[in-house]
C-alpha cells in the first residue's frame, strides 16, 4: 500500500532530519507526525515521483520553521545530545577527531536556522542541491549562496 510505504520510507529520515535541525527527541517525534499529517493533507501538490524527496523534506522543514517561530527565544537548538555515540575507541587520533566533530556540531548549533538547515539538508541528509533547494523552498542559486555562507562561518569557527 503506497501510503504505508511512504511512512516506511520516510519516517526515520524525517525524524533524524528534525533531530539534526536541533529539536529534542520528543519534539522531533511530534514534528514527524505533524509532517505526515501535512503530507496527507497536501498530497495533491506532489508534482511527480522525482520531486518526492524534496517535497517531503520541505514539509518537515516548514514544520520545524513554524515550531521555532512559535518558541522564539524560549528554546535553544541542539541541547539534547544524540544516543549511541561510541567513544570507547582509544587513541589520540580518534580523540582529536571526536573533538573536531563535537566542535562542528556546536558550531552548527550556533548557525542561524536558515544556514543550519542548508548544511543539514545537503551534507547530513545528503540531498542533491536541487532536492535540498526544493526542501528549503528556495532557488538553487539562493541555496548555494546560503551554503557558501554557512561553510564560511563554520570554517571560521573551526579554524579558530
Amino acid at each position, binding site marked *: *500500500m*503506497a*501510503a*504505508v*510505504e*511512504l*511512512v*516506511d520510507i520516510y*519516517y*526515520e529520515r524525517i*525524524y*533524524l532530519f528534525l*533531530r*539534526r535541525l536541533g529539536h529534542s*527527541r520528543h519534539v522531533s*517525534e511530534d514534528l*514527524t*507526525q505533524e509532517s*505526515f*499529517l501535512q503530507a*496527507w493533507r497536501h*498530497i*495533491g501538490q*506532489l508534482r*511527480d*515521483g522525482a520531486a*518526492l524527496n524534496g517535497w517531503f523534506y520541505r514539509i518537515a522543514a516548514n514544520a520545524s520553521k513554524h515550531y521555532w517561530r512559535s518558541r522564539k527565544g524560549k528554546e535553544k537548538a541542539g541541547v539534547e545530545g*544524540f*544516543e*549511541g*555515540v561510541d567513544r570507547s575507541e582509544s587513541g589520540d587520533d580518534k580523540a582529536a*577527531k571526536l573533538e*573536531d*566533530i563535537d566542535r*562542528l*556540531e556546536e558550531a*552548527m548549533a550556533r548557525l542561524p536556522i536558515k544556514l543550519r538547515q542548508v*548544511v543539514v539538508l545537503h*551534507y*547530513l541528509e*545528503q540531498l542533491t542541491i536541487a532536492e535540498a533547494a526544493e526542501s528549503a523552498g528556495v532557488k538553487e542559486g539562493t541555496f548555494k549562496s546560503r551554503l557558501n555562507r554557512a*561553510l564560511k562561518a*563554520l*570554517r571560521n569557527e*573551526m*579554524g579558530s
Partner: protein
Amino acid sequence: MEEEKLKKLFSELAEKTTEAVRPDLGDDIKGQIPHRLVPHRRGMDTINIIIDLRISKLTAAAAIIITMILCVNFLGGRGSTSGGIFHDGVLMMRYFLTGARVNESDLSAAKLKYEQLVGQGREAVYYGEGIDRQDSNAVLLHWKVSEGEYRVMFGDMREKTVSSEELIKLQAEMLQKSK
C-alpha cells in the same frame, strides 16, 4: 579549515547524529493515515462504508445503515457484506442522497476480482461503491504487482500499471475530490 576535511567531518557527524527511532513511531503515523488511503481489509466493508459516509457528512444515512444491519442480523438475514439487503440499502440511499448512478455489473466484476486477488494472497485494495463513477480517474481497485509497482482499475474499468508515487497522486486526487 580545508574544505575536504570539513566535508569528511560532515560525513562523520551524519554518522554520529544517527540514533534509533522509537519503534512505535512508524505505527503511530500509519494509524493516522486518512481512511481513503488505507486498504479496505476483508470483512471490514461495513465499518469502512460507514466511515466513508461519515466523512461525507451523511451521518443520518450511516445511522440508517447501522439500523438496517442490526435488523438484518437480528432476523437472520443474508450476510451484510456480501450484497443482499444491506448492499441494496446502501445503493438506494446513494441514489436518493447523491443521485449517483451505479453500474452494478461493473462493480460486481471489480469486487469479484478483488476477492480473487485477496484469495491468492495478493495485496489488493478495493474502494467499493463510494467512488465517483463519473470520474474516469477514480481508482476502483488496485493491487501490488511488484515492489513499487501497482496495477490500477479505474472507475471506467480501464486498467493501468503505475508506480507507487503515481498511485499516491491518484489517491490524493480522490481524497481532494471527496472533500
